[in-house]
């Protein structure tokens, strides 16, 4: 085999040993173009992570992606995939170990779903029964009905076609997956569903994924790390979505992340990440005096009524009259927030509730109360 890496192809161990994909000073200048599309780009993608390349058009994100499987040949620099020098490997040999999903799906219209999915295993010379088993497994994995196996791509919806595209890319169980705006051509509802499905799928298969999009929200939702590129293939910043949103490296990144950066951060933080305060809570039968003290501490004009871990409801202090706190006829907490909800959802619950607070539950167990102040403290700390 002439595709074995040469001795020099072994990556230096000092560099991040976990990097499944590594770009070293990679540049690409297209023929007839003065300015490079990608300039001296270095990037590492750790094993099992999703790294999203995002940026405005002309930022070289797709060019960068296509250099990894050498659909586009880099002008300069080195690319390592799974410890192998991609530049020194025969393109077709390299590509059989890299799943590839593109926006227009690129499904073979003259081949059935099953035949499409079987493409790479067939190229690799798997035997027939193994291929058949794998096809069945994958069609199920991406959430398609088994009877779709014999359909042709033209008979599927856009979302279904894209699922077939993902199944085809995963067929030979490659360690690496390249996804080029895979959800760009489907409508927003299907896109949202496919995004959630991809994360679910990734939790099972743990591939190293490079994902290209121009949609910063998609990047934030899907990326373990997000790389923001600027025109000319300049890497402006790479980091976890939270890092980027908290501390954008420069003006460009901040602007690209959008003016609602704070809100975007909220959508990344789950409610259970905060130490929840019980809030202005009293037990049924508490005195008016007791209730006043509790309410004052939280600077509110109402109290919630809790009994044995169960939240019964709330009432204004003004409704207390002279008696004690009742156990019935209380105002209900309409929005019951799950501990897994995001702070963005929590904030929505808060601003739409009359008590200006959201009660958080783990199933039926009351965990505590969240207010807008508390959320604001969290993201400004």
């Amino acid at each position, binding site marked *: 085999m002439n595709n074995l890496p040469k001795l020099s192809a072994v990556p230096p161990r000092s560099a991040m040993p976990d990097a499944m994909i590594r770009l070293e000073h990679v540049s690409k200048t297209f023929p007839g173009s003065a300015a490079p599309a990608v300039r001296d780009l270095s990037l590492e993608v750790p094993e099992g992570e999703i790294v999203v390349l995002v940026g405005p058009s002309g930022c070289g994100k797709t060019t960068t992606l296509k250099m990894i*499987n050498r*659909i586009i040949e880099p002008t300069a620099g080195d690319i390592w995939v799974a410890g192998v020098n991609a530049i020194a490997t025969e*393109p*077709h*040999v*390299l*590509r*059989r*170990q*890299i799943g*590839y999903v*593109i*926006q*227009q*799906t*690129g*499904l*073979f*219209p*003259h*081949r*059935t779903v099953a035949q499409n999915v079987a*493409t*790479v295993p067939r*190229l690799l010379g798997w035997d027939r029964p193994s291929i058949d088993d794998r096809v069945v497994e994958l069609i199920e994995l991406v959430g398609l009905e088994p009877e779709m196996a014999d359909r*042709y*791509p*033209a008979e599927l919806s856009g979302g279904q076609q894209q699922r077939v595209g993902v199944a*085809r890319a995963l067929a030979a169980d490659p360690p690496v997956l390249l996804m080029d705006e895979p959800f760009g051509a489907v409508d927003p509802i299907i896109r949202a569903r496919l995004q959630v499905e991809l994360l679910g799928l990734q939790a099972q298969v743990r591939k190293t994924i490079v994902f290209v999009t121009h949609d910063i929200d998609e990047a934030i939702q899907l990326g373990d790390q997000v790389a923001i590129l600027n025109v000319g293939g300049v890497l402006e910043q790479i980091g976890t979505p939270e890092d980027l949103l908290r501390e954008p490296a420069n003006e460009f990144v901040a602007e690209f992340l959008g003016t609602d950066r704070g809100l975007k951060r909220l959508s990344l933080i789950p409610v259970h990440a905060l130490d929840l305060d019980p809030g202005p809570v009293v037990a049924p039968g508490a005195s008016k005096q007791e209730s006043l003290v509790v309410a004052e501490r939280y600077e509110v004009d109402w109290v919630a009524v809790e009994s044995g871990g169960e939240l019964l409801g709330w009432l204004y202090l003004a409704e207390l009259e002279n008696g004690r706190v009742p156990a019935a006829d209380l105002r209900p907490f309409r929005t019951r927030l799950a501990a897994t909800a995001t702070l963005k959802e929590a904030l929505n619950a808060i601003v739409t509730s009359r008590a200006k607070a959201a009660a958080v539950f783990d199933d039926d167990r009351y965990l505590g109360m969240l207010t807008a102040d508390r959320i604001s403290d969290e993201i400004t700390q």
Partner: protein
Amino acid sequence: MNLLSDVLDFFLTAQSWTGDDGLLIRTVDHLALSLFATMVAVALALPPAVWLGHRRRGAFLAVALVNVGRAVPSFGIVALALPISLRLGLGLGFWPTFVALVALAMPPVFTNTYSGIREVDPAIVEAAAGMGMTDVQVLRTTELPLATPVIWTAVRVSTVQVIATATLGAVIGWGGLGRYLIDGFAQGNDVWVLAGGIMVAALALLADAAFTVAERWVLPRGLSSRDRSEVETVAV
């Protein structure tokens, strides 16, 4: 009125069909030469067209060939091939006609094949390469099957044209159904002229129908009916 019934009589007379100059043998000759010429034209035009289309090169050649195909009359090629054939000792008739017909069929086959391959959705070609297919595998498993409808249409149109044009052979002394036209004109026999014309037209229509029927087995499944019906051909 008389002419039509005379033509009918001609077709219904057994002697018209038999013998060395009968309808049967001339039809067989005509068809054999036409199919042979078309096959040779396909064999010559297809490989370079496929390869150039795959490489996405040679658009100039494709356009030039169509224009040449449109501009040069088949009769001109016959006239050109005749002296060459005589010099080579290949004689009158068959070979010059054959050359003219091959030349007639090649441009549409070349051009349609070229553009059929070239216009395969680049996303599909990229996906095929991205899956790890070699160059030849991309061509064989993806580009060729997807271009089949266009190629098939070109071969069909060429065959029909060749059958119609093969009548020219009679001008330079070859047989075939053209004899009825040429001899009919020469001897003022309208029955022959009309009968010959009807036979040639019927043969061309039959060939066209045969191609349509064969489509079911030739064209890859999965291509939507839209893909098939919108197949355009640049044939003249």
